[in-house]
């Protein structure tokens, strides 16, 4: 196993499109790093750069300390699971699994045992003589995983491996992947656009936006202390509520509705201008008596989700607030409500730079 280092990598396509602005990233030995971001943010490009399917315009890529920047994919000892699985349709499952070993001139008996082992680990034994066309989506996905496992590569690269599965199968396979990673302990880079997948699967996650990394940290750290407005909105479901405010004397912030809150937890410098953005997660807002909250609002839509209820409310300023409340909450649309914000869990941002105020 190995660690991966991406150093000052830039990728500009010939048409001038900047896919990766300037990225530094290290993945520790045996770590599962998730690259997450909206579509078109460059996360897949970053993965393809590590795989060697793209060459960087500038910067270096190291695997296990060796500079592989100019090496073709076949000399990097990485394995990749594609979003479309990319199984060889004219070969059986057994031949698909064996392909990577065969082209590397592995002895035949070694190939046989490796294939058997991977097939057993993934429950593919009964399917070995079928062709990909005869398999279900979930089975194809496992063959794609097996094809990567069989070679014992230094690094696993996974490009949205679950996105073609239906919701239930996706959850099961996610757990399966977590188990597999724990057992193999392989260095892995995993790309997804699904923040929940990133949160649950990653040992660390890198949130990417427009070809730049916004934050790299453990999922809970990202959730608790998002480094920017973008991360705050992207990670966590339903998304964080963001409210504009004016900075006043004595480190007080006046929100649109007239409410003032102390700017707690911010020890560092404040922006030169007087505007700040308050972020508060829907789970950190409580519904109280209409006259007792920090903010007054009207109930707009009530969505029962079984385990809890998501309530959308309109503030006096016209802004929308999302609140997750206990399933027993009984509120009718247009009913007035008070909102109390959990003072321990407020996030402050500079709206100009988008950076978190610490």
């Amino acid at each position, binding site marked *: 196993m190995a660690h991966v280092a991406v150093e000052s990598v830039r990728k500009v396509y010939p048409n001038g499109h900047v896919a990766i602005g300037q990225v530094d990233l290290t993945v520790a030995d045996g770590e599962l790093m998730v690259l997450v971001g909206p579509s078109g943010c460059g996360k897949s490009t970053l993965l393809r750069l590590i*795989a*060697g*399917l793209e060459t960087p315009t500038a910067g270096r890529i190291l695997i296990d300390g060796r500079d592989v920047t100019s090496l*073709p*994919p*076949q000399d990097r000892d*990485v*394995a*990749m699971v*594609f*979003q*479309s*699985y*990319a*199984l*060889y*349709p*004219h070969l059986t499952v057994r031949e698909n699994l064996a*392909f*990577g070993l065969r*082209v*590397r001139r592995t002895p035949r008996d070694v190939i046989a045992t490796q294939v058997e082992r991977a097939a057993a680990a993934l429950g593919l034994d009964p399917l070995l003589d079928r*062709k*990909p*066309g*005869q*398999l279900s*989506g979930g089975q*194809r996905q496992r063959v794609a995983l097996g*094809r990567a496992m069989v*070679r014992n590569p230094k690094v696993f*690269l996974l490009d949205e491996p679950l996105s*073609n599965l239906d919701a239930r199968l996706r959850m099961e396979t996610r757990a399966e992947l977590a188990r597999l990673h724990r057992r193999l302990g392989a260095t892995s880079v995993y790309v997804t656009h699904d923040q929940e997948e990133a949160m649950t699967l990653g040992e660390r996650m890198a949130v990417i936006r427009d070809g730049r990394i916004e934050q790299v940290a453990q999922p809970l750290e990202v959730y608790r202390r998002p480094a920017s407005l973008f991360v705050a909105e992207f990670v966590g479901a339903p998304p964080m509520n963001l409210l504009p405010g004016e900075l006043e004397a004595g480190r007080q912030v006046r929100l649109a509705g007239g409410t003032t809150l102390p700017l707690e937890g911010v020890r560092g410098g404040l922006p030169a201008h007087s505007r700040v953005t308050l972020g508060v997660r829907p789970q950190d807002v409580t519904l109280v008596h209409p006259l007792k909250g920090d903010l007054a609002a009207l109930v707009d839509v009530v969505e029962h989700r079984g385990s809890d209820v998501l309530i959308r409310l309109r503030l006096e300023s016209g802004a929308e607030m999302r609140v997750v409340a206990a399933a027993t909450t009984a509120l009718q649309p247009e009913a007035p409500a008070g909102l109390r914000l959990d003072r321990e869990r407020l996030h402050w941002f500079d709206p100009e730079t988008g950076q978190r105020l610490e």
Partner: protein
Amino acid sequence: MRPARWATIGLAVVLLAIAFPLYWTIVSSFTPEARLFQAPDLVPRGLVLEHYRALFAQRDFWIPIRNSLVVAGTTTALCVTLGVLCAYALARLRFPGKAPLLALVLAVGMFPQISVVSPLYLLLRELRLINTYPGLVLPYMTFAMPLAVWLLVGVFRQLPPELEEAALVDGASRFRILREVVLPLALPGVAATAMLTFLYCWNEFLFALSFTLGPDRYTVPVAIALFRGRYQVPWGQILAAAVVATAPVALVVFALQRRIVQGLTAGAVKG
């Protein structure tokens, strides 16, 4: 129901228009010379083999068939082999000047054939290739190669690129990927290209007429054209020759058609 019925009728008409000349050729080729110009009869009767006998006994029609098979077969084999390599590079590899190169390939195929006959004749005479097999194969390739490359580039571009990327990451070289991943999947397209190239060479007339000197190197179309004597046209034999000339082509098409129609890429990627 109504549009479907009209479609069926339209289809029948088109089919009839295509099939009838073929039917008439076959029937006529078995009709005695004396009756060929009498009032036509749709139902064949009194069929004879005299035209076919004359074709192979008197004229030794085997020689032009052999010549055509050698020339068309060699040209097709060369064009497809070289064409696959060229087309794969043009379809997948990144190198400067690719787009102009592809346009040039197409442009080469656009010359009117007649305009290059004289220069090619002089060239082939210098190379002492007049009235030889290479003397036909080489000129045929100038036209068949661009066609083959152009068709194959289209075939390769339709394959999902992830398959080749997966093979690259798996450790295969480009050449191996071409052989073990791309070609098996592109087989229907390659077969179609081979068939078109073969048809083109099998039916080619102008070059074959210009660059051969005697019956020992005549190809089928040239031989048929020169059946015509000074005082008479042996229509029966010409039609019999046409049937014989169509047969191998029809066989090739029937042999390959399943491959061509078959979609081999099913199951490669999602869906």
